[in-house]
């Protein structure tokens, strides 16, 4: 594959991003509003419900432990929805990209734009939830102001994962596999609801290979007072995965949209 078909144009990508922002600013109060409440309900049910019986975990109040973890999952869910159902709809149903690609915008610009947009949407949802967590008094460290930066990285990573999957599937049916066998297990087994510290070593090894585990390490670190090296190490992991995947949706979508 030649560089001209792989290297994105940032100005072109930003135009596709701005189109998404424009649509979002019109519709967020409707269909997208309920998603803001999702992590809040988990925080209330588990943090404040279960947390009444389970006072502390690793010396941290349970509601604080869960709240910091849910900031990460809010990002995962928001970014995933954006680059799975939404993108599939744009490819197959509204044929939006056919019109976009008939302008000077190229496939690699679309990939960059959609991942950046998924990250943006993840930041909007994740930061809103972070503020709620802070209002409940569950943030200890001033470093938490850096959270949006890392939520963006996490959102980009899950946006890229979703887009990669979307670019490779032929029908929407495959999403039930993606959510049931990938996203939901990550949600349950990445250390959001209980620490992995006392579990067997192999659990840690498996967790290390999953993206949400690293994002949880980051958000929990920032909220409770970070170990800078650990935050950067986890961030690097997410960055490497996100960048490494880029070529897959570019090639797959080109085959699909520019046949």
């Amino acid at each position, binding site marked *: 594959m030649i560089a001209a078909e792989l290297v994105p144009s940032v100005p*072109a990508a930003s135009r596709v991003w*701005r*189109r998404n922002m424009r649509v979002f600013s019109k519709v967020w109060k409707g269909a997208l509003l309920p998603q803001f409440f999702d992590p809040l309900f988990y925080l209330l049910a588990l943090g404040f419900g279960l947390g009444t019986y389970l006072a502390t975990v690793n010396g941290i109040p349970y509601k604080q432990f869960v709240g910091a973890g849910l900031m990460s999952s809010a990002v995962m869910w928001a970014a995933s929805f954006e680059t799975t159902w939404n993108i599939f709809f744009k490819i197959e149903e509204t044929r*939006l990209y056919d019109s976009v690609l008939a302008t000077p915008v190229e496939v690699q610009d679309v990939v960059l734009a959609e991942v950046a947009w998924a990250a943006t949407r993840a930041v909007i949802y994740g930061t809103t939830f972070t503020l709620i967590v802070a209002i409940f008094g569950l943030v200890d460290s001033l470093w938490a102001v850096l959270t949006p930066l890392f939520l963006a990285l996490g959102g980009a990573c899950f946006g890229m994962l979703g887009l990669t999957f979307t670019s490779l599937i032929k029908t929407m049916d495959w999403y039930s596999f993606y959510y049931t066998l990938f996203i939901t297990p990550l949600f349950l087994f990445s250390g959001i609801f209980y620490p992995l510290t006392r579990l067997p070593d192999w659990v840690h090894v498996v967790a290390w290979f999953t993206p949400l585990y690293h994002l949880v390490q980051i958000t929990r670190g920032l909220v409770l007072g970070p170990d800078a090296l650990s935050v950067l190490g986890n961030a690097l992991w997410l960055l490497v995965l996100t960048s490494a995947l880029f070529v897959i949706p570019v090639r797959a979508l080109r085959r699909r949209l520019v*046949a």
Partner: protein
Amino acid sequence: MSAAVSARGLVKRYGEIVAVDGIDFEVQSGVCFGFLGPNGAGKTTTMKAVYGLAQVDAGELSVLGLDVRRERREVKARIGVVPQEQNLDRELTVRENLDIQALYHGIPADGRIDELLDFTLLAERADAKPGELSGGMKRRLLIARALVNRPDLVVLDEPTTGLDPQARIAVWGLLERLRSEGVTLLITTHYMEEAERICDRLVIMDEGRIVAGGTPAELLERYGEPNLEGVFLQLTGHGLRE
């Protein structure tokens, strides 16, 4: 006069199927050039190759003097596309569809949008969503969208298919005005009367090949037929709508 589009030995396969089977054609600047043929003749694939949404397997294709394969962005910056399938942005209004098109091209929208809304008689529906428009209005909006970047060449894939006679005449009117402004038009159709009425030159396509070409009058004379329907039947042994 320079060629707006020039194709030599163009081949496009989809797996086993040869959609375009080694065609040559040349479109001079400022003319309305038609591709006439039944569904499946390879017209749409040829159009997609011209506007960069199909990668050709063999042959040479130059658009506005540029190599479509190597200068994709440059080519697309200077052409307008009216696709066969309606792919307007459903989430945006009529006006926003045009604004966003200017954005994709990286050009200021300003007065051009109002001009196009007037040109396509959509000014009163500027705030409607595409879903609220009639078939004819959607087609006019697709045409307006294709003109946002003031293209030198507009590719129209079956611009009047599925429209009622009145809407079709409105589209023809727009195309005639564009041609009078010197815009090169590349158009596919399976309507004989449309080809005779608006095309300066045309080629007849069947099963991926070009079987004849010329001005409508030349074709009628060469094959001794009163209309293009007869020419087509004589050349291919079958009608247009099968």
